[in-house]
């Protein structure tokens, strides 16, 4: 709450500090300003949808890549290392361009801007998710696997009922950070025409010639969004801490 207030104050200060500002472009009391503001905010849905879809997929891929990394089999381990190192080395913007323009040609498919964005972000992030999962799972005591063995659970059941539920609690904060990161990175998908927050701002700048105000609004949009997410993550963390288990 205090943070939100701070932002409002900052915005007020910004508007007051110089004659260069032209807040009329997004002044909600005028019809024109209101239309512009609505236009800017209309990207919010896609930013959120894109980030959420991408993070869910990247978590799934991350887990699928992390598990072989924990095996004692050298081939499986090698797969994990190669995947993580390769994917981590690709800049996200390059990944987006490659998935959107390259992948359809390679595989003879058509791909929408949205799914290109989702796939690119999910792939990029999956390498980090994989490392987070690997560290989280490795932090679980060996005795848990041994106890699981004594009650006749196989690998899948051991992971599903014993290891992952405990690991998830430990890595939730890290996953929260990745979601924040994802929200920020989703702005890059604007380059292929995704109608999310950043794209909307770019388009408005072209027609209104007020980059300072419009990008300031854009910046605030991300700030608010991310502060809300961080607050949610901290709330979850606190809940898990007070948990008896």
């Amino acid at each position: 709450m205090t943070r939100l207030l701070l932002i409002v104050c900052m915005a007020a200060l910004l508007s007051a500090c110089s004659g260069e500002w032209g807040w009329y472009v997004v002044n909600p009391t005028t019809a024109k300003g209101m239309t512009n503001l609505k236009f800017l905010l209309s990207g919010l849905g896609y930013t959120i949808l894109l980030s959420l879809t991408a993070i869910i997929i990247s978590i799934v891929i991350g887990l699928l890549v992390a598990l072989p990394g924990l095996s004692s089999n050298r081939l499986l381990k090698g797969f994990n290392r190669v995947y993580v190192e390769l994917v981590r080395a690709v800049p996200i913007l390059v990944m987006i361009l490659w998935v959107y323009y390259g992948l359809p040609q390679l595989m003879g498919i058509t791909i929408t801007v949205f799914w290109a964005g989702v796939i690119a972000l999910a792939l990029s992030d999956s390498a980090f998710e994989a490392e987070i999962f690997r560290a989280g799972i490795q932090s679980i005591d060996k005795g848990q696997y041994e106890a699981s063995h004594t009650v006749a659970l196989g690998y899948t059941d051991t992971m599903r009922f014993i290891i992952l539920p405990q690991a998830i609690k430990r890595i939730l904060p890290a996953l929260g950070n990745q979601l924040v990161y994802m929200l920020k990175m989703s702005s890059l998908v604007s380059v292929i025409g995704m109608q999310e927050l950043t794209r909307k701002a770019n388009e408005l700048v072209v027609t209104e010639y007020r980059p300072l105000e419009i990008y300031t609004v854009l910046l605030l949009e991300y700030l608010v969004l991310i502060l809300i997410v961080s607050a949610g993550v901290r709330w979850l963390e606190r809940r898990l801490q007070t948990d008896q288990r």
Partner: protein
Amino acid sequence: MPNQTDVQLHNEPIIRMQSVSKFFGEFQALNGVSIDVKLGERVVVCGPSGSGKSTLIRCINQLEKHDEGTITIDGHTLGRKKQSLKVIHDNVGMVFQQFNLFPHLSVIENLTLGPTRSRGASKSDATKLAMQYLERVRIPEQAEKYPAQLSGGQQQRVAIARSLCMEPKIMLFDEPTSALDPEMINEVLDVMVELAESGMTMICVTHEMGFARRVADTMVFMDHGEIVEMTNTNKFFEAPDSERCQEFLQQILPH
């Protein structure tokens, strides 16, 4: 009538280890260990730290894979992975020094997970069985609690009940009271004595010599990865053959 196993019919040992060796890299933790355990026999294993006691019983349920020799359980020689796993899962329970309860599950969930997932028991059957064993370890009132809410002694009794819910023929104990405060040791030992009296086959690594005298049929003394002394309990405490064993007993028995 319950299925009679090969072992019972032929009066063979339920566990037979023959010349079993185990290496950790260069280090040899077990050096040609052989031991037979009959159905219903109670074996207590003792010996100095690092002598290979844990490794011995961990090889029996393949938490450690042995490198040489053969281990036969209930007539099945442990070898190819899948089949060995089934033999162990069907026959062998284990209780650890550190309890190793599942901290994110309630006591009752700790007990029912194995039977429901790997035995295909229904939830209500598994719960009934679990309550029965919680009665036996004398903590039925703790069923809904989480491990962190219990004392060490209670946790270890839950761990014993959890293993018993799998209805094993053999129970392995690796220093089950070593992590406990002194005042809690007896509540765990009492449960183990009862279990021994009920006819369970047990191999127990422990330095609780009072307990050993009371329940053990056979005493095993290990040193440097070898079984130095293996004899019936009376002889072991009165006149062990080896000097190393005599010294060890002098150190740990009250004079």
